[in-house]
């Protein structure tokens, strides 16, 4: 839905969070970038402005500039303001009135009113057991009334019989009378599409409202709408007083800024979203979920945040360089294990990655858990720096000493060394440009076994882009030109394509 917007914001925050401390200029730069991203996402200019003002005020008020993890705070503030703007809680359609409860659908031409009317009727029937009557007041567009009748048959909801020559107001009256007489719970009034500056038609709409006294007046609007969203939403609201908004075509790849705009200018909740042409393709609007989506799929922002806060980009660069040369000693392994711990352990990382849910279970089953990360690190830490750089030094006596020092068994030391050797071989093969299948082996080494359900290559590639790590055009402090082989393997920030990539059989055949 909002992938593009989340991409943009993730990029901005990544850059923001890569720096140690934020100056006021940094905040302003980030806000300019947010402004641009929101504009490209079709958020109306005035809404963008008020949005960034709010973020700035709060960011400064919260003392972000002096805080330890300023990036994290800005992200949180943006997220908070986003959710506030979209509306804190999902609001369902309100039917708490004496039946028949009228619901009136209004909007521009081609917004999707008729389809949405039928979808809502189906939902009210199936989920709420409401007897619903639908009536099309669209006497303008050819075959509009027939369209609703056909949809009514499809979803098995009654439609008001078509009487040629009646005006929309007359049809509305007839619908309410019929519903009263026949004991319907809800009447859905589908009105003709109209341009919001078409005064006679807007007046007609007000007249329909007066006669049918709808309990809900829903603006149906296209999620692909651009800057005009504010004009149309505020005009409709002024003319009839909306009670809510339904956004259609949320299954498109539009960036959905209209959601933010319309909610902002009307203050009216977005109640439902249309996500397809089928009659059940209607979802509740969840502000938190959408805001999270705007900020990043699968909570990528949180990952970026944690990762960036914990990882020294310089160290990562060095590691990446070493690995590019095929070098990977025990110190490197130790560093990577430390980073895994800092980010919140394996579970933490996996939980943040989109589409890794299944893998998580397999990792749990393999026994390679956070405890093991800790133990392995302890083992390495019991070695001398020299030993870490040159594992070949580790003969039986040294192993015994290390085992004792770290409270582990010699077998565990051996196991670690074996794993490391395999990983180092793997790195060497990267260094010499071999590829394919290697990562699968790496996963096996870690005891994860083959055939895991993995996030797609594309997904991971995207993630890597989002994380902005090792991209040639990435932010400062990031290696400028990483070895192509490493680049092609999705990796986490600062992990240099090492351990975590090792957990993932990226080399799986495409």
């Amino acid at each position, binding site marked *: 839905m909002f992938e593009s917007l989340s991409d943009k914001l993730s990029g901005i925050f990544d850059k923001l969070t890569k720096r140690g401390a934020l100056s006021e200029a940094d905040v302003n730069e980030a806000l300019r970038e947010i402004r641009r991203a929101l504009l490209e996402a079709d958020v109306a200019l005035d809404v963008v402005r008020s949005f960034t003002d709010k973020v700035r005020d709060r960011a400064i008020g919260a003392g972000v500039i002096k805080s330890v993890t300023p990036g994290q705070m800005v992200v949180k503030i943006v997220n908070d303001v986003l959710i506030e703007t979209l509306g804190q809680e999902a609001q369902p359609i309100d039917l708490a009135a004496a039946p028949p409860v009228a619901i009136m659908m209004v909007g521009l031409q081609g917004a999707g009113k008729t389809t949405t009317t039928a979808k809502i009727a189906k939902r009210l029937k199936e989920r709420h057991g409401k007897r619903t009557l639908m009536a099309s007041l669209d006497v303008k567009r050819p075959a509009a009334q027939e*369209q609703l009748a056909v*949809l009514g048959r499809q979803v098995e909801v009654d439609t008001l019989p078509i009487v040629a020559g009646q005006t929309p107001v007359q049809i509305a009256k007839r619908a309410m009378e019929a519903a009263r007489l026949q004991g319907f719970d809800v009447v859905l009034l589908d009105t003709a599409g109209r*341009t919001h500056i078409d005064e006679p038609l807007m007046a007609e709409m007000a007249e329909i409202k007066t006669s049918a006294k709808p309990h809900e007046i829903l603006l149906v609007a296209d999620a692909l709408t651009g800057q005009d969203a504010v004009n149309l939403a505020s005009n409709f609201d002024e003319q009839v007083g909306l009670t809510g908004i339904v956004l259609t075509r949320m*299954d498109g790849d539009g960036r959905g800024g209209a959601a933010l705009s319309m909610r902002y200018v009307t203050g009216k909740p977005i109640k439902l979203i249309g996500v397809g042409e089928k009659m059940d393709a209607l979802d509740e609007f969840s502000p938190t979920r959408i805001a999270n989506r705007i900020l990043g799929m699968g909570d990528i922002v949180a990952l970026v945040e944690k990762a960036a806060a914990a990882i020294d980009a310089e160290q990562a660069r060095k590691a990446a360089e070493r690995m590019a040369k095929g070098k990977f000693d025990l110190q490197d392994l130790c560093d990577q294990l430390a980073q895994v711990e800092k980010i919140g352990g394996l579970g933490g990382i996996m939980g943040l990655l989109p589409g890794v849910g299944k893998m998580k279970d397999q990792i749990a089953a393999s026994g390679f858990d956070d405890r093991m990360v800790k133990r392995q690190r302890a083992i390495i830490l019991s070695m001398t720096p020299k030993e870490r750089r040159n594992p070949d030094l580790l003969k039986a006596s040294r192993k015994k000493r290390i085992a004792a020092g770290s409270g582990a068994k010699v077998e565990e030391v051996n196991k670690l060394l074996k794993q490391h050797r395999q990983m180092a071989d793997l790195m060497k093969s990267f260094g010499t440009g071999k590829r394919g299948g290697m990562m699968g082996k790496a996963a096996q080494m870690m005891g994860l076994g083959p055939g895991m359900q993995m996030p797609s290559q594309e997904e991971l590639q995207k993630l890597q882009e989002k994380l902005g790590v090792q991209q040639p055009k990435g932010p400062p402090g990031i290696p400028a030109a990483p070895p192509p082989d490493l680049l092609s393997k999705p990796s986490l920030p600062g992990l240099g394509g090492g351990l975590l990539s090792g957990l993932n059989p990226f080399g799986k055949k495409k």
Partner: protein
Amino acid sequence: MSQEAEGKKRGMFSRLFGGGQSEPAPEAAPPAEEEGRSWWSRLSGGLSRTSQAITQGVADVFTKRKLDALTLEELEDVLLRADLGVGAATRITEAVGKARYERDIDPEEVREILAREVERALAPVAEPLVVDDSKKPFIILVVGVNGSGKTTTIAKLAAKWTGEGKSVVLAAGDTFRAAAVEQLKVWGARLGAEVVSGAEGADAAGLAFDAIKRAKEQGADILLMDTAGRLQNRAELMAELEKIVRVMKKAEAEAPHAVLLVLDATVGQNALQQVDVFERVAGVTGLVMTKLDGTARGGILVAIAETYGLPIHFIGVGESAEDLEPFAARDFARAIAGLDETSEAES
């Protein structure tokens, strides 16, 4: 320019700008009345809210001010509100600022410059749709996302061409949406154009094949093929569209002779993706922008023109069959800049 042509043109403009007024007949607005009024009063009286807002915005920015970085930024905002998008808005703002930086400049001049810059982007793509008489029938496929105005545009085109004495056949290729076939049939009956249709849910590609055969038998001049609305990110629906084109070629090797993508003026930046994907899948040859009778200015066409350079043939300015106008870069640009069509001619 003849009196009649002038009146007609103004009629289009008042519709384009002043959708707020009900429009009894296209030529109803008497130009004589407008003649005496000043440029400004017509501007404030006739322009849509958006244009007014733009005009006001520009005026606010430039009255008694030097053209500095801040004012340029505000000028960019003005363009952003018209859906030009960040890229095009920035480029045009830069062009306006070039060589005028730190100079005193009055609002009217800025509007002219603004209009000229927008026009510069649009002029190369303002091309009429040429119906090649040697192709019988000349086959036009109409595509676009849901509700963009495809069927209505087909009706408008059919009205135009039947009015010119051409025989037009319509193909009800939207076999998916409820009552879409009926919608086109109503138009066909109104306009006296034959409608080829199949059952609802029938294969659209098969229908396209039949329609071409039928139009050939009829010796029709033009075949207009409607299609179901589809979002461009729906792979299976785009594959279906590809198939429609493929099957059309089986009935007539050169078909379709034109592929029109219908864009709704209210659309934002997603229009770029729409153009991109529909072009690749269906080989779009030209664009039509509908619903310019509302407050949306359709500024995304500037970005589309810069990126894709596809011809823009027509604009839709209402729901009736006659509410179709050829795309005129200058008029469109001036609407975006908040100018009316005659002021430059006067100056």
